């Protein structure tokens, strides 16, 4: 297997794959969309979080993904959480975060009503710091697979494949992903402390603070890695309502709770478990 590091995670490609263009794609996206690079386009945009701004075609495209994802999840997976993520203490590359700090003071997450995109023109009617973490990695995995022309691409738990691929899951199970994408959203990986309390990077837009949910890991399969990642984040944030939310969208979901017990929704049962029992 060919691997390299980018976007704070390990990117995996099939053995022998020409990784140069894929690596360049990941690195370029990381430079452009990172909140932690002061000279990234996103950081520049966040330094002036109000009013009209012209953005690059790449940023416009990623923002369009993020806004569509926000609409599709009723505002749960939203790019408007930038200030809330920083207030929760995630204000630097994860590896450089201090172990603890002052208590978190939740920040109101702005409504998407205040955010509008028309081609390269972004208008924010109130101060909105953007965080594109909700879509950048998933979209980049999909785009990287297209660049490779086939095979698979995996980055930090997010997978896209064009051929059957056996994927290990949190807790020890495995599934075969025949195509499309699979992603696991987790509150166990990037954790830090503020005010002595554990924090993580998934913000509940209702509270403006890291979500308090019954799930540690949520895995979803969908038509693309981007779709799977967005759905996994939404299902995790929805807590107990997550499994049925996925069912209504025809998506299989697997949930690991705080005791380590595994729960699946009806679609997962139909697609993965019942064929096994037959």
């Amino acid at each position, binding site marked *: 297997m060919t691997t390299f590091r980018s976007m704070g995670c390990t990117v995996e490609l099939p053995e022998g794959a020409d990784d140069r263009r894929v690596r360049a794609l990941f690195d370029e996206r990381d430079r452009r969309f990172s909140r932690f690079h002061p000279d990234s386009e996103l950081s520049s945009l966040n330094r002036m979080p109000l009013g009209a701004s012209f953005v690059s075609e790449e940023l416009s495209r990623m923002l369009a993904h993020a806004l*569509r994802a926000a609409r599709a999840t009723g505002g749960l997976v939203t790019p408007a959480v930038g200030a809330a993520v920083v207030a929760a203490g995630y204000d630097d590359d994860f590896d450089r975060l201090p172990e603890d700090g002052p208590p978190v003071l939740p920040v109101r997450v702005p409504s*998407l*009503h205040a955010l509008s995109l028309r081609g390269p023109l972004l208008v924010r009617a109130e101060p909105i710091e953007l965080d594109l973490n909700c879509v950048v990695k998933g979209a980049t995995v999909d785009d990287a697979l297209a660049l490779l022309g086939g095979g698979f691409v995996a980055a930090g738990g997010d997978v896209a494949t064009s051929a059957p691929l056996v994927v290990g899951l949190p807790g020890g199970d495995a599934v075969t992903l025949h195509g499309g994408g699979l992603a*696991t959203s987790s509150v166990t990986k990037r954790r830090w402390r503020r005010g002595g309390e554990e924090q993580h990077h998934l913000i509940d837009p209702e509270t403006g603070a890291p979500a308090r949910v019954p799930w540690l890991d949520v895995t979803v399969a969908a038509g693309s890695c981007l779709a*799977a990642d967005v759905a996994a984040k939404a299902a995790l944030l929805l807590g107990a309502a997550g499994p049925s*939310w996925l069912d209504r969208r025809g998506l299989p979901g697997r949930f690991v709770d705080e005791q380590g017990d595994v729960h699946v929704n009806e679609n997962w049962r139909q697609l993965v478990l019942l064929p096994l029992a037959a």
Partner: protein
Amino acid sequence: MEPSSRIAKARRRVRAARYAIGALAVAGFAVFGAAARDAHPATHHSVQAAQDNQAAQDDQSSDSFSFGTPSVGDSGSAVPQIQSSGS
């Protein structure tokens, strides 16, 4: 008289250039203003999400974002080729 004529012509060209620059600036400002007005949330409703109402989590009108069709199944007893350990 020829030198003064050249000066007069130059002045006319400068005046014309100033008018052109002014007109371009006004037109540019108007275009930017119109674009900003069009994109402003108060006049543009397509991005207005249902964030204010969590009940909209069940809104099926999210036709612009496709979750696609999942293609996943049992792995048998095959050894995982990669791990989806979460992010």
